[in-house]
């Protein structure tokens, strides 16, 4: 038995998909292949897709001064009043919401980029993504001495440069839909945010752990203060959360955690917040959001 055989056995735990699992994907494909269809599903799909990309890949939270474009992650120690050390989960999240509202409200311009730096285990991910999705962005990752840079071509007039093997293929383009790094239409109150999270949930209805991942993705994204506060307020309404004292984020910063339990035997996920400023830090033991800024150019970090 060698290493490859061992690995194969882990792969064998996941069976091929059944037709039932695939039916919605098949319907989406059929909607796109049917020539006469005006493709309402396609529109819905691309909205969802760009949203996912924002969530998973490269969005950021930031604030820019109109000219200097610098950004700060956390408010400097104002916000909620309850001492977090003994607080329950609801109080921790409410404090985070209050603190979020203290951050100056600045809207990124369409021609700017969202810059984000994340520590994730041994790797660091930096990204510069076009606010409106039409400018060329970049993702830079370093892990164990390996650095890779991947261009993220902007989508202009429905076409984007083709990227293969991490390089733009000269002279080739493909159809695209712009994928903005910042969405101006996010809900700004807790009720609407709760509905938004329910509509876009990635897991099964009622899965608290999956809901926590959705909140995590949003917390790592650019949100204006009112939306960020709404996110934490909506999270505070989720039943079954637990405050965990003295957690450490992926960069070793300590804070207070919110645990999202798993019901299927998986590990619970713990979101970490600074105990004093109440700013979101990252996930306990895994990741840390180290920089979030709106910048004018790719490569600029503040």
């Amino acid at each position, binding site marked *: *038995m*060698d*290493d*490859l055989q*061992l*690995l*194969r*056995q*882990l*792969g*064998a*735990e*996941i*069976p*091929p*998909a*059944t037709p039932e*699992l*695939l039916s*919605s*994907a*098949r319907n*989406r*494909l*059929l909607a*796109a*292949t*049917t*020539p006469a269809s005006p493709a309402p599903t396609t529109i819905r*799909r691309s909205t*969802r*897709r760009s949203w*996912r*990309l924002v969530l*998973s*890949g490269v969005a950021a939270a930031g604030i820019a001064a109109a000219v200097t474009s610098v950004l700060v992650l956390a408010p400097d120690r104002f916000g909620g009043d309850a001492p977090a050390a003994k607080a329950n989960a609801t109080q921790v999240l409410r404090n985070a919401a209050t603190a979020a509202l203290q951050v100056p409200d600045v809207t990124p311009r369409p021609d700017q980029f969202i810059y984000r730096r*994340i520590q*994730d*285990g*041994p*790797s660091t*991910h930096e990204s510069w993504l076009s606010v409106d999705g039409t400018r060329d962005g970049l993702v830079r*990752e370093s*892990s*164990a001495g*390996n650095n*890779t840079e*991947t261009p993220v071509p902007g989508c202009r007039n429905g076409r984007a440069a083709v*990227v*293969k*093997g991490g390089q733009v293929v000269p002279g080739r383009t*493909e*159809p695209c839909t712009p994928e903005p790094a910042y969405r101006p239409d996010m809900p700004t109150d807790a009720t609407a945010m709760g509905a938004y999270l329910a509509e876009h949930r*990635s*897991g099964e209805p009622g899965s608290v752990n*999956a809901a926590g991942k959705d909140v995590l993705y949003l917390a790592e994204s650019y949100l204006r203060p009112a939306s960020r506060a709404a996110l934490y307020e909506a999270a505070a309404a989720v039943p079954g959360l637990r405050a965990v004292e003295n957690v450490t984020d992926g960069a070793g910063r300590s804070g207070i955690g919110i645990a999202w339990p798993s019901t299927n*035997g*998986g*590990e619970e996920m713990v979101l970490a917040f600074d105990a004093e400023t109440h700013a979101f830090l990252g996930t306990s033991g*895994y990741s840390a959001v180290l920089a979030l800024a709106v910048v004018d150019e790719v490569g600029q970090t503040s």
Partner: protein
Amino acid sequence: MHRSRRVKAVDFGTLTDAAVIERSLRDSESFAVIFDRHAPYIHRYLARRLGAGTADDLVAETFLAAFRRRERFDTAYPDARPWLYGIATNLIRQHRREEEREYRLRQAYIPALSEASHADRVTTVVTAQSLRHMLFGALAELSTGDRDVLLLIAWEELTYDETASALAIPVGTVRSRLHRARKLLREALGSDPTNAIEEISSNG
């Protein structure tokens, strides 16, 4: 109408993927045949790397992207699966953090018996806690390029040539990446994985 559909279905059964894709340039709906042939495997590949929830969404993205690029498929290859794996792999790269998180989650997760019913008993024994912890930990730490090659070969059972064409890299690069990835796996498992397995088997 009904009759012509039936005739079509019979035709497709004998056509290669390349022929179906060529045909789909004129008759776009016939691209569904490509989905039906390969989607269960592409979905499994995505689920293995990103978890089932993300796979549900990305399997559709993979086939929509394939459909939009179908005129660029090289019809010298009769089988479209390596090409589809390449498209899926590109999408996975945009979800690297989710992928690493997935491996971290699965490190600690021993499937319940009912969920593991498709796997034989040996599997359950061998993938006991410590080994799965080491293997998933190693997977999470591989560089993306090395991991793509390793998993297309180990999990998806592509040949070296198919892997090279899926990733648009030379076969020599496939070999060197596989070598590097396996070296890291073996280091993670300790010098002699066979011993570790026998120990666990005899205890189980």
